[in-house]
Each structure stands twice: as C-alpha cells, then as structure tokens.
C-alpha cells in the first residue's frame, strides 16, 4: 500500500481532517458506491454564501476517506462560487497518488456528495 499511495494520502486516511458530524448543518448529502460499499456524508455550515465549516463522516477505503478529508480542507472558508469550480482532476491531484481508473469512483465520492448537495 505504501508503494501505491502517497504519504499525504495515507496521512489523511489515518488522521482524517474535519471528520465528524456537524451540529445542524445547512447542507448535507450522503453518497455511496453501491457495489463496494463506501459511504461518505458531507456536511456544511454556510454563512454569507461561504462555507464556514465543512465536515464529513463515512466508512470507506483509504482513497475515499483521504479524498473526503482533503476536500473538506479545500472548501473550508471558501466562497460557494469556488466550490463549483473544483474539478475531478484537482481532487485527484491533491491525493498525490497514482489513482487507477477502477478507483476513480472512490476518489470522487466526496466530490459527488458536494455536487449533489448543491450549495
């Protein structure tokens, strides 16, 4: 695993940032992979069209948990218009790992939740 995944990815998996449910989130959406079973729920607190707090809970593989952790860091304190500009590639690049095509869905699960939440 250490060969395939970057230290950054493993660190975010072992110590996910912003993990935990928020109290009364303004936006919440749970996405899941129907076959492998990864589930990520992304929650946001909003104020003045900006994300004041981002959090997530979920059970998932190293890639999906690390990606969710990184995504919450990327969007915290950011304007809602910025959220819409985040591309798949940006999040995948942030993992600094060689994500195989079969695992792209894992890497993008949290981003899918963000887009479905539609803040």
């Amino acid at each position, binding site marked *: 695993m250490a060969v395939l995944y970057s230290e950054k990815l493993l660190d975010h998996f*072992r110590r996910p940032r912003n993990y935990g449910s928020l109290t009364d989130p303004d936006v919440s959406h*749970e996405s*899941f992979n*129907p*076959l492998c*079973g*990864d*589930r990520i*729920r992304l929650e946001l607190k909003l104020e003045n069209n900006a994300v004041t707090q981002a959090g997530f*809970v*979920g*059970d*998932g*593989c190293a890639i*999906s*948990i690390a990606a969710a952790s990184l995504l919450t860091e990327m969007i915290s304190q950011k304007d809602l218009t910025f959220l819409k500009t985040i591309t798949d590639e940006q999040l995948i690049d942030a993992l600094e790992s060689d994500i195989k095509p079969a695992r792209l869905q894992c890497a993008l699960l949290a981003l899918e939740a963000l887009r479905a939440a539609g803040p």
Partner: protein
Amino acid sequence: MEELFTDLEKLARVEKRVAMATLVGTRGTTPKREGAKMWVGEEGRILGSVTIGGCVDARVITEAEKALASSQPRLLQVDLGDEDAWEMGLSCAGSLDVLIEPFDLADPKLVDTYRAVRAAVDDGKTVAIVTPLKDSASRILVMEDGATSGVLDDDVRRVALELIRKRKSATVSIGNESVFFEVHGPSPTLIVFGAGHLSMPLVSLARGLGLKTIVVDGRPRFATRERFPEADKLLVGIPSEIAQTLSYNSSTFVVLTAHDYKYDLPVLKVVLRAGAAYVGLLGSKRRGKSIKDFLKEDGMDQSLLDRLHVPTGLDIGAESAAEIALSILAEAVAIKAGRRGASLREKE
C-alpha cells in the same frame, strides 16, 4: 423467553387451570438451567420442559397433576443418580429442584405478571420475579432500575439487582429463606456487519437459535429483505455510525463478515468498546494481526483488542458458508457460556 410467553398465552386460551413447573435449583451436571419451565394443563396439555426429556419430565408431569388436584404448590427434588441418568440417556448425575405451582387462569395474576415482564423485556429491560420458595404466592417483580411491584426486603432487592446485572436466574438463601430469582431480559441478539453471502446462513441459523438478528451494510443491494427474510432489522447506512446507535450487552454477539478494512476498522473502534458478549471478525490470523496492529497504533488498549475473536469460529473444518456460520455461532455461544467449545466427550 419468547417461548415462555407464547406457551402461557396459548394455554390461557384453552386451559382453565395449569401447573407451572419451574427449575429453581440445579446441582452437578444438569441439562437445563434455572428458570426452565414446563406447563401442565388440567386438560392434559404439556408445553416446555425442565430437562431435555425422559423420566424427570414424566415425574414432573405426575407431580404437576397432583399439585392441580390438591391446589397446593410443591417443591420437587430429583436426584439424577447414575442409574436414572442412564435410563434417560443422559450422561449427567446432578440434582434438580423443581417448584410446581397450580394456577387458575381465570385469575389474571400470573398472566399479568408475565405480561408486565414481557412489556419490560420488549422495552429492552431486564427484570426479576422474586419468589420465596416457602410462599410462592407472594411474587414480586423487580425492575432493573430498582423499582418493585411490592414491598421487598433490602437484601432481597440487592440480590435481585445483582442477578439482573448478571442476567442469571438462581435460588439464593437469604436469612432463613430460600428465594428464587427468575430473571428475564431481552433475547440474545446477533449483529452482523456485512450483508454478504456468508451472512445469510449466519442469520438463518441465529434465528433458529432464538437470537434476534440485525444486519448492517452500506450497500442497499446487499442488505435486502429478499436475501435476509428472517432478519429482525436490516440497517443500511454508514456502518460505524449505525454501530454507535445500537445497544450492546452480555447477550449481544457481534460478527463482522465484510472482510473489508473500510468497514472492519471503524466498526471495531465502536464495538470493541461497547461490552458485547462476543466480537468476531472474519479473516485469517495474519489479517487479524494487521487489523489489531492498526487499531493499536490508533490508540486502542490491548485489553480491548484481546476481546476480538479473529479468525472467528471454532475449528470444525468448516468450508461452506453454512458450516462457517455454524462454527461462528458455536464459538459465540461457548464464549458467552464461559466454555472453550471443546468436544463434550473430552470433558472431565
């Protein structure tokens, strides 16, 4: 427990009078434990058993008929001498105390007592019926919060609460009196994390053993009623989050069958701290060691990690899903009973 309520309700519909035979004391090796019941109706119906059959049950039936005829309770003592044991086909030589009490079912007292017990149990509570053996008519119900249905001596109440905590029926000598504490609690529950192929026979077999069953998975295509027709609950969501909402006690078996670290790690972080009777994880010793190492690095105490049974199951040469399910449940039952799960003929 469920069987007791069902039997009583059945009899209440068709019999006017019944004798309730309760196993209140055991010494040595006996096939059933304190609290086992047999009902003998005045019209001849028989439900339940205080042994696994044979001439002891026959003697209880005879004494029950005498109790009904005399309208007097009686305490029957049965020594299972070697000769009797052979007669019954049992390899045991213990002795039993059976309290036999006649009841008029038109008097709602008995049925109401057990309905109150059932209501508490359905609400997830454990309760004790306190019966002095010399005066079995004066039963008092003790709830797990200490509330009682009548006036109770402090020592008796303390023993009742201790036995409620242990979930164990027993006769205890208090002062000059022998008092029987009949403890009832929620049915043992099997919680399975992972709704894969193996979990299906695991749930079916558990139901056959009288366990309530809960299946948890993140995949709605797997945790379906079609795949688990006998499961009491199917819960779909984030497994570790669901794990935090469930209750665990000394009658809860937890088995993780997903064989996937993404469920195993976060769920184990919850359930190993939760006080279940048994936590089993599907996987090899090597995988088990990796999982434990990961959890240890994450700060989990060794004492909690030692509670994990991995690989889960007894060594019975299981290969098929049903055989693996059997080996897992056999180990879980043995652990709960404080046994090793060895062959009975090897037992001293």
